[in-house]
Structures are given as structure tokens and as C-alpha cells.
């Protein structure tokens, strides 16, 4: 029973003897093996740690277990929330939207507005035109967004709804009451059964950029567009802007959700910040576009380079080398020397790397996440002399595996470094048991791996549900690399203390100064 002076929740309540009795008593009715035959559980558990299991596990062709990717419309919702006053609108069933909103909200601890047009069985039979007509009108009337960005769920894609025709029809029927002809409603088809959330990001970004700029082409301006990609670190967006601003150049960040998902307390406004729609319309007239995530923007950048003939290209400012390249690209595009401010920042980062390197050097890491994140983060690990033993990318697009392999081949430890494209986190479990590492870097889904294999987890990635405020920091630019360095080094030091804290046994190594 609870004690009034110390009321405890489930964490400690169920450890009490009366509850331990309840749980033990329940076992007589259970069919789980632990209740009937704990020895069998131990035997199978041991087998799941073996090479034999690993081979069978890696041979899987059909079932995915504990994935490290999500579906297209999630990325589309992120893009929409990076534009001024824009409501993400998902054409399809509303369960999906409940999921996208929960998923982002759990990560950012911030509200995530997004509507659906709630298609049900009749829409599955007759198509979702009626839903679109009503949905766009209601959304415009109630939330008064400046723009509505339409993407699709797999339901709408399977029945083949035609977004462009539907949007035109919705505007025509409304007759301008809520949806004037010029009301911006860009759209993108985002089928969940193709690619992953980064594909959806690319499709929606392409949709917004291509549709808002229609008929806007004019005089080229000395201005740089920056496309951040599926970036979940709010601080990264700010670091990138600070770097660009240091060059004194005019720029537009396309899809800037840094204010939307980082609202100050005090009052609630549904939409905050974001790329100005006028800027988005004019982005075609910039002289250059830099995408910070190659694999999350391949379609968009193809348009920008081939049709818009923009200079720029890709640059991934995660890690020292990545940031150097980004800075040099800006220097080249602006014809400006690297500003003193950035030189000092770089110097400080390198100084910090030289202070901490003994703790990362030679340490083995397993790491997973989105393809572009991995390119940057693995580059940083290599810059520190660490060994990325297992680099796993579930949503690896074409070309990623080769690029990652080439990077790993620059390491003296290259023969023991492995790339795992299109594998999931149950594969990772086998890898960790059979070829163990010192640390893991990844998202919250790694915590079951941490529990099972005992490998310490450094939380870097998306989604992170069970650690607070990490997303507010930057992992990009020199300051972002310093954050990576700090998180990783201090986790190594925490673990060193953990391993040496045995009183009168190992604590000779429990050093005060490290």
C-alpha cells in the first residue's frame, strides 16, 4: 500500500512484495514461456546472440523488425511547417495525421499542426474529391493559413486521386469565398510504399518550390537558397544561418521550421516563423542553391540544377570537414574571404578536438540514422580517429552505400568497418552481439538494444522521445561539431567512471582528472 509520506509511481510501486506476489501469482494463467519454462527462454535468448542466429537474421527477405525509417508524408509535413503560415494538409485517412502529429510532438515537445480530410470507405470507392473540396474550405475558414501544402497517405495513392485536378475543382466550387484563385495550395504525391520520410521531404519541397515559382522567373539576384533537408536539430538550422550571415550575403532558407518547433512560452500561435512566401516565390531568381542533405533532396536539386541552372549543389555541414566544405563553398559563391569570426570558431573546435581525442580514438561505434546524417556524423567520427564499426542506414537510397564505403576506406581500420544498407535494428542487435562495439549512436529506438546488449547509447538522431531538449542544440557547423564532440566524449568518460567505480576493486582508475 502507498505510504502517504512517499507516494511512488509504477517504477517503485511494483517492486513491493505485495505486487511481486500479484505478478508471480499471475504466471499460473500465462502462456508466455517465462512463466512456464524460464530455461527455454534463456536457451533461445542465448541463441539470439549467436553467429548462427545472425546469419539467419541477416538472410531475412520479407519481415522488417524494429525499423529505423518512417513513411513519406511525415517528411512532407516537416516541409510544410517550414513555410510562413502554412498548414500541412494530408489527403487521406485521419489516423495517419494523428500519428504524424504525435510523432513530431513527442520528439520536439512542441505542438504540430496538421489537418487531414478524413477519407473513409465511401472515399475509397468514389475517390476523395468531396473530402478535398470540403477539407480545403474548412481548413482555410477555421485556421486561416497563408498557404496549404497538400500531401497524400497511401490510401489516396492506391486509389489514384489526382491532386492537381482536385485542388482546381475545390477552388472552382468554392468560388473564391474561402479559396481565391490565387490562394497557394502546392501539392505533392507522397506514397508511403515508396522510399521513406526523406523521399516525402523531397517531393513536398519540390512541389512547393516548383509550384510557387511558376511564372516568377526574372532577373537573377546575388542570393543563395539554402535547403536544410529533413533536419530535426533546431540549433542546426540556426547555426547554418549564422554561418551564411557571416558572409554578409543575401539568402533564403527554404523550409525553416526553427521557430515553429521552438516556440517560447507565454501564448500559443499556431504558426510561427518559416520561409516568407514572397521569398519562396522568388527563390527561382537566386543565383545559387545549396542543399545540405543530398539524399533528402535529390529530385528537388535536379530541378534546381537542370531547369533553374543554379550554382551551388550539395554541402553537408556536419563535422569539421563538412563544415569546412560548406564554408569554402559559400566563400566561392560569394567571392568573399572566409570571415574572421568563422576562422576563430573553427580554431576553437579544432582545439577542443585536440583536447579530447584520446577518449574517442580507436573506440568502436555502431551508428544508424538517415543517410545524410550518417555521412556527416561518420565523417566526424573518422576525423576523431574513432572506428565506425557498424554504419546502418535503413532508408539508404541508391549510391549511399558506395559513398559511405569510400569514406570508411579512408580509415586505417577500414577492414573492420561495415556498411549495412537497408537493414533494420533487429539486424543491428545481431551485429552488436557478434561483433560488439564500445558505444552506439542513434535515436530512442536504440534503448532496447542498450538494454539487451549492454552497449551504451549516445542519443543523436531522430526521433528522440526519452531524452529532453537535445533537438534544441546544433549538430551542424563548427559549434554543432563541438556539441557532437562534447556529447560523445562525456559519454565515454561517464562509461569510464561506470566501469571503474568498484570500491577497493577497480577504483584506482576512478581518476579525478581525465
Amino acid at each position, binding site marked *: *500500500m502507498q505510504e*502517504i509520506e512517499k*507516494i511512488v*509511481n*509504477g517504477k517503485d*510501486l*511494483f517492486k513491493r512484495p505485495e505486487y511481486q506476489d*500479484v505478478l508471480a501469482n499471475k504466471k*499460473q*494463467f*500465462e*502462456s*508466455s*514461456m517465462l*512463466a512456464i519454462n524460464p530455461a*527455454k*527462454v534463456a536457451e*533461445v*535468448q542465448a541463441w539470439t546472440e549467436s553467429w548462427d542466429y545472425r546469419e539467419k*537474421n541477416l538472410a*531475412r*527477405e*520479407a*519481415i*522488417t*523488425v524494429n*525499423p529505423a*525509417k*518512417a513513411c513519406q508524408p511525415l517528411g512532407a509535413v516537416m516541409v510544410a511547417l517550414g513555410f510562413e503560415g502554412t498548414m500541412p*494538409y494530408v489527403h487521406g485517412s*485521419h*489516423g*495517419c495525421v494523428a*500519428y504524424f502529429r*504525435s510523432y513530431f510532438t513527442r520528439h520536439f515537445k512542441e*505542438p504540430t499542426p496538421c489537418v*487531414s480530410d*478524413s*477519407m473513409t*470507405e465511401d472515399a*475509397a470507392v468514389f475517390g476523395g474529391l468531396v473530402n*478535398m473540396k*470540403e477539407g480545403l*474550405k474548412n481548413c482555410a*475558414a*477555421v*485556421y486561416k493559413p497563408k498557404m496549404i501544402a497538400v500531401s497524400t*497517405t*497511401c*490510401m489516396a495513392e*492506391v486509389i489514384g486521386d489526382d491532386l492537381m485536378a482536385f485542388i482546381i475543382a475545390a477552388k472552382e466550387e468554392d468560388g473564391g469565398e474561402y479559396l481565391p484563385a490565387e490562394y497557394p495550395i502546392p501539392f505533392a504525391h507522397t506514397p*508511403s*510504399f515508396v522510399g*521513406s520520410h526523406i523521399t516525402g521531404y523531397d517531393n513536398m519541397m519540390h512541389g512547393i518550390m516548383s509550384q510557387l515559382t511558376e511564372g516568377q522567373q526574372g532577373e537573377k539576384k546575388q542570393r543563395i537558397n539554402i535547403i536544410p533537408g529533413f533536419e530535426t536539430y533546431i540549433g542546426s538550422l540556426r547555426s547554418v544561418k549564422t554561418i551564411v550571415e557571416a558572409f554578409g550575403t543575401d539568402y533564403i532558407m527554404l523550409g525553416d521550421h526553427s521557430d515553429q518547433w521552438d516556440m517560447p*512560452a*507565454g*501564448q*500559443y500561435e499556431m504558426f510561427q516563423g518559416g520561409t516568407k512566401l514572397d521569398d519562396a516565390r522568388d527563390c527561382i531568381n537566386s543565383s545559387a542553391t545549396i542543399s545540405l542533405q543530398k539524399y533528402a533532396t535529390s529530385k528537388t536539386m535536379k530541378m534546381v540544377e537542370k531547369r533553374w541552372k543554379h550554382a551551388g549543389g550539395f554541402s553537408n555541414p556536419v563535422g569539421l570537414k563538412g563544415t569546412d566544405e560548406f564554408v569554402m563553398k559559400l566563400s566561392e559563391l560569394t567571392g568573399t574571404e572566409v570571415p574572421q569570426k568563422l576562422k576563430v570558431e573553427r580554431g576553437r573546435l579544432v582545439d577542443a578536438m585536440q583536447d579530447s581525442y584520446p577518449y574517442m580514438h580507436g573506440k568502436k561505434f555502431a551508428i544508424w540514422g538517415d543517410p545524410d546524417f550518417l555521412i556527416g556524423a561518420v565523417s566526424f567520427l573518422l576525423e576523431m580517429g574513432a572506428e565506425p564499426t557498424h554504419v546502418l542506414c535503413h532508408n539508404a537510397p541508391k549510391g549511399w552505400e558506395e559513398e559511405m564505403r569510400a569514406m570508411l576506406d579512408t580509415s586505417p581500420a577500414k577492414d573492420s568497418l561495415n556498411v549495412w544498407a537497408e537493414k533494420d535494428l*533487429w539486424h543491428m542487435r545481431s551485429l552488436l552481439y557478434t561483433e560488439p562495439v564500445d558505444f552506439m549512436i542513434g535515436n530512442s529506438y536504440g534503448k*532496447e538494444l542498450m538494454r539487451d546488449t549492454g552497449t551504451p547509447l549516445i542519443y543523436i538522431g531522430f526521433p528522440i522521445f526519452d531524452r529532453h531538449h537535445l533537438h534544441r542544440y546544433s549538430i551542424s557547423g563548427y559549434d554543432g561539431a563541438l556539441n557532437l564532440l562534447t556529447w560523445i566524449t562525456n559519454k565515454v568518460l561517464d562509461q569510464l567512471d561506470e566501469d571503474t567505480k568498484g570500491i577497493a576493486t577497480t577504483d584506482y582508475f576512478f581518476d579525478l582528472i581525465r
Partner: protein
Amino acid sequence: MGPESLEAKQKAAIEEILKAYPEKAAKNREKHLGVGSPNDETQKTCGDVRSNKKTVPGVMSQRGCAYAGSKGVVWGPVKDMIHISHGPIGCGQYSRAGRRNYYIGVTGVDTFVTMNFSSDFQENNIVFGGDKKLGKCIDEIELLFPLNNGITVQSECPIGLIGDDIGAVAKVKAKEIDKVIVPVNCEGFRGVSQSLGHHIANDTVRDYIFDGKLNIDTSDVTATDYDVAIIGDYNIGGDAWSSRILLEEMGLRVVAQWSGDATLKEMALTPKVKLNLLHCYRSMNYISRHMEKEYGIPWIEYNFFGPSQTIKSLRKIAAFFDESVQKKCEEVIAKYQPMIDAVIAKYKPRLDGKTVMLFVGGLRPRHVIGAYEDLGMEVIGTGYEFAHDDDYKRTKEEIFRSTVIYDDVNEYELEAFVKKLQPDLVASGIKEKYVFQKMGLPYRQMHSWDYSGPYHGYDGFAIFAQDMDLAINSPVWAHSKAPWEQEG
């Protein structure tokens, strides 16, 4: 404020809110909003609201889908079975381990609740069908997770649209692996909310667990006159455990939990119990009714939120059994009373008179009202994401005063109601949480217990009281205004 003026204020709020909608939407939403009055006999449902209808498109409803109702609610917590999210990758990922269905077991070896098994449909599966892939998925599961006691196939939207026959695949494979395989056609576009998913899942329990062939031995459990099953408790934060302990203390034997911390065997044992105890009526009344009709097992609804309702429920349950149980029931009530008195003495002075607005799912919009009342708090608005008429009828019996009732409330409406009615606490889900916290309003998630709980039973009530106090009386809300903005 007198009851008339409160009611008038509430009605005015509804009228005002409807003005923002285009005509058709306003007409629709008007029917889902009302003012519930406990003494008004003319009201058919609480506030005379309409429910379980299609959501108005484009308004930011908080509802989920049939897949969420089946995989996320009913089937997902059954711990020794593997639940395949059948279709594209997203649904299983977004719903992974989000509901806090606690269980005991070695995850990945003999229990699987917090894992995500997906058939990860690609374009070719849409074009050519996914039945072959499903068969292969089942083979691989059987190879790598041999201690599973069965598999369910939780259909995502495309399955029903491309004409796959998961029933046929399940039948063939079940024979091959000699385990139960349950095909569930809970595609997200079916019905108007999670609710139809509950119903579909209940029906598959009937067809595949009760009427199916199970490779599981139940003969070692001999039925007794005191056997009961807990139905509709998903063991969120351990709720079913803090309920079970009370039932056991009064001499009953809890043979099964549906479906928090449940196993296949417990479900198979249930048709032999003497009484089914139904907590979440909405999600599991179907299977309870079926067991009544088919096996003659009566069922009663109970409410383990807050001491007043808990005591009422314990006595109601005991009345079904003999005097020995009734005597022990009184002993249980007496045993916990001093602790409950102390909890109320400690927290009621800190919470007395505070007002709450609720918006939750299955049973909580009405079941938790009593728990708040026990702490001296008043619920001034409540509503359900996916209720039916029978839920709103039951809600009438729980409200104490004029209460705003909002069915399938959307982001705009809830925000507007809160601004107009100014509660001291908002209690709803994760999607709404930060909207209200930004406004400086104390907030508790009432789906997941905000990562605390359990809230059921006596021990749970102490935690509930502590958590509500923590939310309402935290110093953090006073920081929203900067010192240079303070008046005077």
C-alpha cells in the same frame, strides 16, 4: 457563479465557436457540441450530442483510425503473440511502444509488445499484391522468434484496397506452423475512428481465439467459483496490476487480463470465468456481450478511478459473489480507507475548487470525473474522440453540474473552449499538450498518464492525486510573465 449563468456561458461559448465554420461544417459540428445537464431528463445523451459520425474534413480532429484501435489498443498488448503491421512502414513505426502497455517478459524472445514487426510494403507489393510476402514474413517470424504463441496480421489501408486475401494466407500458414494466425481487416479507412477497429478486433478474438483451433494447453487450470476476468484494461503504466491486487484481496481469482500484460492462454481461459469485469466499455463491450450470449457469462462495468467509484465498484462486484467475498470486500475497503483519507487530507486543500477540462478516448472522459471530485476538483467540460451514443448516455450519470460536452472536438474548438471557460487544468493527449502549456496552463496527458501511473485502484489514486497537485501547483507556470511585464 450560479448554475444558470454557468450554463448560459457554456451555451454562448458553443454558439460563438460555431461562427468560424462554413455553413455545412457548422451545421455538422453543432450536433456534436452541447451542454450536459445532470437533471435534464429530456436529454437523450449527455448534452444531446451526436457521436460516432464521420469527421468534418480539414478541421484537425484528434481521432485515430481502425488500425490504431485494433493494433494499438486491443491486440497490440497481447504479449506472447507477434502483431504484424501489414502494409507500408509508417503505421507500425508511429504506433510503436506509445501506449505504455506494461508487461513482464523477455522482449524479442518470448514477449514482443514494444517491438515493431512490419511487412514494409514496396510499390511492387501494391501492384502485384502482398500475400506472398505475408507468407514469407510468417515463415521468417517462426524461424527467428520460435517462442511466439501466435501471430496477428494488422491490415493497413492498402490491404483492403488492393484485394489481398490475408484470411487465406493465415489459414494456410496456421496449419503449417500449427499456431493461431489471426487476420484482422482493420484498414485505417474503415469506419470513422479507432472505434471500428476495436469492434473488428473483438470479432477476430471471437472467431480465432474462441472458435479457432489453439495449440495451447489450458487443462492445468481448473475453474473455481471465484474466477473473473479483467476486460478492457490495457495495463497502461500498470493499471491492471493495481486493479488486480484489490480483486485478489477480496478473494477473487483473476484468470485473465484483456489485454494489458495478456497472454493467449489467459484469453483462451476466459470463457470459463464466472464474471467478466469490464473497465473500458467502448473497446471491449462486443466480446463481453458475445461471451454472455455464447457462454452465459454475465458482465458488469466497474470504475477504479478515485476512491468513491472504486468503493462502489468493489461492492458491486462483491454482490455478485457469496458472503465470504462480500466480507473480504469490506475488509479491503476498511484496510485502504486510512491511506485514502490521508491522501485526500494532503491534496484536497491544494486542489479544492480547481476546474478541469477533459478530452480523452474510451472510458476516461466519464470515469475520471469521480476521481477529480474526490479531490474537490470540478470537471467543467468533457468529450470523447470516438464514443457512441451509449457512452454519452453513461456520461449523463457521471456529471455533477452543467458541463460542456464536445464530441470529436478538434484543435480549434478545444482551444476556443479552454480560452472561454478558463479551466485550471487541461487533461487530454500528447497532440494537445503543448498548445495549452504554451498558454501557461497546467496539463496532464490522460492517455499515457504522462509517463507516470498507474492511476487505477487505491494505490493508483494516490499517484493520481500527487500528479494533479504536481501539475497545478508547480512553480513553473508562474514564470511565463517576465518581471518587467508584471503589473504594479
